[in-house]
């Protein structure tokens, strides 16, 4: 950043462009509508599908010329596995002010809870803030909780494991079919730290953590 040529144009200094665009977004009343996300993703996925279809069509035509069998279903199977689950960040818009304060906190920390089961796309994020006792946990891409069971957040620290409470979940606004959940609570001090975090799926009222669907361990 010592090059003088960079000193008169924001476009040549990414930090300046970041500051300008962030400031405009903060000042603006214009927000992208939630449905735009699906349209954008659908557009790129459709483009990929079309490309795949043409590719497989070409392959199928060659194969058909030899064997007389057109294997369109190969393309279809390939396409069916191509879609990744939607992220649920848009759900932030429905949560309360504490959530925004904590996750936007300067110098804040976050632990990412990963799925314990292979193939699961669920995830969780535990946010803490150095200037606040408030802690926020959010989880996305969850399966619908079966009857009689709830998602519960259990945190381990200071020699004990404690239930922080059941997760409130609701269907994702993205229409992905997954569920999104969050819980906000106060720790016993500012900037709390933990050794383990688990999101379990178990009957409410159990005294110990049950089957963990998400887990984070301090390295």
């Amino acid at each position, binding site marked *: 950043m010592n090059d003088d040529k960079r000193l008169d144009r924001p476009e040549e200094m990414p930090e300046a462009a970041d*500051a*300008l665009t962030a*400031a405009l*977004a903060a000042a603006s009343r214009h927000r992208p509508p939630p449905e735009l996300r699906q349209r954008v993703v659908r*557009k790129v996925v459709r483009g990929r599908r079309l490309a795949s279809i043409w590719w497989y069509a070409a392959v199928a035509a060659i194969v058909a010329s030899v064997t007389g069998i057109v294997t369109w279903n190969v393309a279809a199977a390939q396409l069916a596995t191509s879609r990744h689950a939607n992220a649920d960040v848009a759900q932030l818009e429905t949560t309360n002010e504490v959530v925004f304060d904590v996750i936007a906190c300067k110098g804040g920390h*976050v632990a990412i809870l990963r799925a314990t089961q292979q193939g699961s796309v669920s995830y969780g994020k535990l*946010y803490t803030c150095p200037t606040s006792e408030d802690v926020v946990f959010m989880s996305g891409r969850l399966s619908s909780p079966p009857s009689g069971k709830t998602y519960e957040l259990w945190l381990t620290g*200071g020699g004990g494991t404690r239930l922080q409470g059941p997760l409130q979940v609701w269907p994702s606004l993205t229409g992905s079919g997954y569920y999104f959940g969050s819980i906000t609570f106060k720790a016993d001090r500012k900037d709390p730290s933990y050794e383990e975090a688990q999101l379990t799926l178990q009957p409410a009222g159990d005294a110990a953590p049950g089957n963990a669907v998400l887990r984070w361990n*301090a390295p």
Partner: protein
Amino acid sequence: MESSGTFIHLEPPDEALCARVAERDVGAFEVLYDRYRGRVYAWAAHVLGPRQAEDTTQEVFALLWRRAGQFNPSRGQFTQWFWALTRNHILRELRGISRQRRTQIADQIAALIATAIAEGVDVEEAAFARVDTQRALDTLGRLPPDQRRVLVMSYFVGLSHSAIAEELSLPLGTVKKRARLGMQKLRQALIADETSGEPIQHKEVRPDERR
């Protein structure tokens, strides 16, 4: 609740996500969309109008999807590449719009930013934009308004320094000086933030760095 725990990075950096997008990873694309949608949309809405903002946002992210393979991390940060892509697209859409109209648009943007600097940031927006918008406003707030205005006119609507000079009835040297001083102050403010030890986004922190 004492522990020696280390909290890990929120999400992969933009550069890693862009590499995954180049490999046609829709999940990585969605994360980048969520990170930048608010800023792209706001820019498009103010410069091109709310009606066109949706289409423009969609086109910008379609470009990201198609061109992700062209991003070379050895040549700069993802944001530099992405904002160049966004800006080129929006300025292309602005072709045919008069210089006078561009100046009006830029002045509206500068006024909005000035109001936000004076009044502070909406916490909802901070979460929405996924960057520390208050810090961005603080940084821009350190610039004198006339310097900030020149940067806004140059960046958001693509006015050249000579066009700005004509629109503001100022000598070209004055505009260039304002741009240069504005960028110098912006750079100093950003360096000061970098060395303050407080990251703009959540980042990996070692236990001995946390206290």
